[in-house]
């Protein structure tokens, strides 16, 4: 036969042979994984592997969740009975339930810290601004997942936590009560609510979470992986790295480089470390379970889990609509619009100190803000909401410090920080302080109580 027909024959057999198909995939994957990047771009110091840890926590959630689903019936008497069965009868049932509970807390914590870390390394700047928005959606999904999951054991805390949450929902004017009606599938928290929360918690939210996460990861790579990329997608190196690499490509010489497989390898180690920590906690502390839900008796205090106590703290100060809907709404939309607000555009590094000194308008806004805060403090004794504000003001004034001594070390670092840094730090501090006060310092009737006197 002619060589040409032989070639086509070989090509055809190659095409038909499954092993060859596998090889082609292998080369693709190896291609992606073998791309080498500067360690400084990819190392632990840059991301603390928080994204990977969150994903690790999520995988633990899914695996333990699926196993728990084998024994859990979402119905009023049987649901709680299954919790008892898990605790007493099913081999290592307590471990799975505790692991599910603690890794839920861990996942929420990790998502918060991951978001903060991403922000502080300005990972929201183009081309990754949409990926940032995706991250915010994932944060909301995580909170929703844990809120719906909280009702399933159907004990006192879950029943009353859900009731409080549902009533916040109904405080939205016009369609609030209607929204609550659809959320609970009735006017009170009972069988319908449990079933809807169950479907949300086990089907809708996890699936949407998975899709969004995969999109989130896909965009991560498309937008240039960990290291910054300019418009044409060429890696944008920091001045320091640029100098080291010399010309356009990366003459990496003595710099240590990392391939993606190395990064993956380290992230898996980090995830295993997280699993070890969570497993030990689950083995030592049992997931708390209270009496069966009793609509006729509200336990005092009816505290939400720690990630919602900040919100509950706000509710203590402001009417439900303000604290329940407006403030959280503003925070979330604020987060989403961060990449699109000029103030956050770090390319033109807005030195906070210079930015502030110049304009008269900015002085007036600052003064108004301080006035509002002090009224809040006097009227509502909401000093725990105001304290972070004062801390930020103190830090900026310390950074500014005008003519006092040489500017070096921490003060110098602070002075270089842009305005966006201060805004984010303020809101993060607010969140942390409100959560800490809500969790540790609030006793029956949401009264102030010193934790050691408990």
């Amino acid at each position, binding site marked *: 036969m002619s060589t040409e027909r032989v070639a086509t024959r070989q090509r055809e057999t190659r095409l038909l042979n499954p092993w060859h198909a596998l090889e082609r995939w292998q080369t693709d994957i190896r291609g992606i994984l073998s791309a080498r990047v500067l360690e400084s771009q990819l190392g632990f110091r840059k991301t603390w592997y928080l994204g990977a840890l969150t994903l690790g926590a999520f995988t633990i959630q899914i695996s333990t969740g699926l196993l728990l689903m084998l024994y859990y019936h979402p119905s009023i008497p049987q649901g709680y*009975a299954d919790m008892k069965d898990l605790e007493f009868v099913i081999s290592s049932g307590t471990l799975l339930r505790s692991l599910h509970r603690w890794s839920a807390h861990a996942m929420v914590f990790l998502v918060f810290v991951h978001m903060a870390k991403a922000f502080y390394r300005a990972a929201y700047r183009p081309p990754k601004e949409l990926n940032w928005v995706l991250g915010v959606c994932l944060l909301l999904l995580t909170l929703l997942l844990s809120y719906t999951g909280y009702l399933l054991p159907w004990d006192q805390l879950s029943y009353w936590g859900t009731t409080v949450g549902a009533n916040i929902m109904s405080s939205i004017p016009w369609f609030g009560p209607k929204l609550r009606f659809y959320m609970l599938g009735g006017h009170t928290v009972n069988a319908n609510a449990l079933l809807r929360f169950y479907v949300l918690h086990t089907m809708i939210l996890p699936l949407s979470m998975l899709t969004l996460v995969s999109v989130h990861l896909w965009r991560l790579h498309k937008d240039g992986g960990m290291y910054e990329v300019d418009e044409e997608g060429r890696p944008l190196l920091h001045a320091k790295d640029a100098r080291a690499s010399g010309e356009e490509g990366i003459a990496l010489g003595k710099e240590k480089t990392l391939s993606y497989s190395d990064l993956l390898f380290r992230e898996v180690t980090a995830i295993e470390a997280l699993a*070890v920590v969570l497993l030990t906690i689950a083995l030592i502390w049992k997931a708390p379970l209270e009496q069966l839900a009793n609509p006729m008796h509200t336990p005092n205090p009816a505290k939400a889990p720690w990630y919602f106590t900040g919100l509950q703290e706000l509710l203590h100060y402001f009417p439900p609509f303000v604290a329940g809907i407006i403030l959280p709404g503003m925070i979330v939309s604020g987060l989403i619009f961060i990449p699109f607000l000029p103030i956050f555009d770090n390319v033109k590094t807005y030195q906070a100190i210079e930015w502030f000194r110049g304009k008269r308008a900015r002085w007036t806004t600052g003064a108004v803000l301080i006035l509002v805060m002090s009224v809040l403090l006097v009227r509502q004794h909401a000093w725990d909401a105001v304290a972070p504000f004062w801390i930020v003001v103190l830090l900026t004034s310390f950074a500014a410090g005008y003519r006092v001594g040489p500017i070096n070390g921490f003060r110098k670092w602070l002075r270089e920080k842009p305005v966006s840094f201060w805004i984010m730090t303020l809101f993060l501090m607010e969140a942390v302080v409100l959560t800490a006060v809500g969790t540790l310092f609030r006793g029956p009737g949401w009264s102030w109580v010193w934790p050691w006197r408990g």
Partner: protein
Amino acid sequence: MTAQTTLGRVIKFLAGSPARRFASISVVLAIVASIAPTKDLFSEWRYYQRQYKQLIRHRPDGARLQKNFQGGIQQIWIPERHVTDRCSTCHVALQENSLADQRKQPFRPHPPMPHTLNEFGCVICHNGQGAATTVTEAHYSTKEWEQPILPTRYLEASCGQCHMEPLEGTPQLNLGRRLLARYGCAHCHAITQPDGSRIMPVDEPPSLEHIGEKTSREWIFSWLKNPQVYAVSSTMPNFRFSDQEATDIANFLVSQSDASVNSTAPAPASFALPPAEQAAVDGPGVYGMLFCASCHATQNSKGALLGGELAPEITRVGSKVKVDWLRRWLKAPQGYDPKTRMPRYRFDDKQIAMLTAYLLTKKDEDLLANVHLDPSDRQSVERGKKLATDYGCAACHRINGIAPPEGFAPDLSRIGSKPLFQVGFLRGMPETLPDYISGKIRDPRAFGPALKMPRFTLDDSQVEALTTALLAQTDRAVTMPPELVRSVPLAKYHPGGDTGRLMEDLRCQSCHSINGNGGEMAPDLTREGSAVQRGWLLDFMKNPDTLRPALIRRMPKFNLSDEEIHKLSDYMLNAYQAPGFDSEALDLRSLDAGAAARGRELFYTKYACQACHIADYKKDKGYVGPALADVGDRLTPVWMYKWLKDPNAVAPGTVMPNPRLADKEAKDLTAFLVTLRAKKKGGAK
């Protein structure tokens, strides 16, 4: 320095490069992950089951026990009763009676009881958390579970969740329920029973509508301060009033008292009391002859109570009542208090005078010695009325101007499952529900000075019985499915027509019970009509004497007119027949002399009836059953025959054993019994 480097080398070895870090963290993860199943292997119930296997290995019947033993978690699952009890996971030997000599739990067999294990499970009786397989969760109250194990001494309370009738195995519960009714708890507290009915009080608190006629303010004052000083066995509780409060209430009671029907009755012309010394001598004779002791108890010198508990104790009645009231009361008690249980005895005036004088000698000088009340005024009466309303006196006593309060005290229908977080324990008292209830009964005011509940004079066993009865009132009891509830039919029978009014006037049902309604002190008259002969009944009504000489409680003489006696006898003979009792079941001709002789031989030798019955006063001394010396006059032969055949069928609950007599033997015995006549009557049948 050396410590520094060795540590450094170890760290370098373990976590030097990413690959080493991965390796060491994977090893740690493997170790931690392997702990999980092992943690499951060392669970508490496996420890107990291993101990059980060791225990039975070297017992004589170890092989059989080993075969019966099933490892793993055992569960009694009864879906329709919502029971999932896993107690038999650790209490492995519940059904192994050969382990009865084991003194230490959890390997004891279940002692004999009326139900089987898989009929109701364990939690329905013992409380505790059935679903648990650890000791702390199963036995004690924790955040996840509020019903700790019921202490063994209150176990009878669990029987009360379904059974409302008095059971043989629950003496303490039966006593507790009787006390709830007798001590008037049911007046203030609503206690719903498993079949939905409420516990009805059986004590008869006297009406206070005309108290002014009966006694003085001073007596009321000392009674309110401490009732038991006047009458030891009184069920009146002590409200611990201050002197001022007691005076105010006494003033109010006297001021609200109005004229009773008796007070308007004309006083008899020739009414003079015999002198005290003569009353002291002849009084006891009249008092004894009228058998007042059958209902009224008196405390003798040694302090022991003699007499019945149906009526109030009259040890010190002399220092309480006014002469005129007593005289009119003995004449017609219903005139003063229409609802009293005391019959109208139709005494003649001489008897009334003697009785009044005798009762007035029963005085206690120092009862009212140092009680001096200043005259009553309007404010004191107002304060008294407010106090009476606040403390709910009208819940028990009928008082003019105060309506009986509704829902005055907390509803106790579900006190047995009161969640512990709603209970205010005293400092230092054990935090369990039984201790709270018994503590509240013993001293209510210790839980809060503002509480209105008075203190009752109860001894320890009575408090324990009351606690048991209250612990039976659980959520499960009140929501018990009807097919499980064993309720007691509420008998409301009262005789009708003018004979009914006569029997009402004589208060027959205070002592006798007819068709299930009435007292338990005297025989049940439900089937008397088919038992007794007419002649004997008429004589008995004329002057009743006892069938049981041993007992001090006798039927009193009512001095009935012949016309009343005939009316009563005819009513009883016709109305109170035994159901399905044909009086011709026995042809009287067969009761000839031969049969009587055989009967005598059966009576005295084969069945030794003389052990319990007296056939001939000279020879026999058996006090258990009624005297049969004149049974020939008293009972109809057919009744005797049917009674001998099966006593319990004819009179349920009788103590007479059923010797399962053959027909012939029963006829012979009846023939013999028919010959037993009161000597003076003699003559043909």
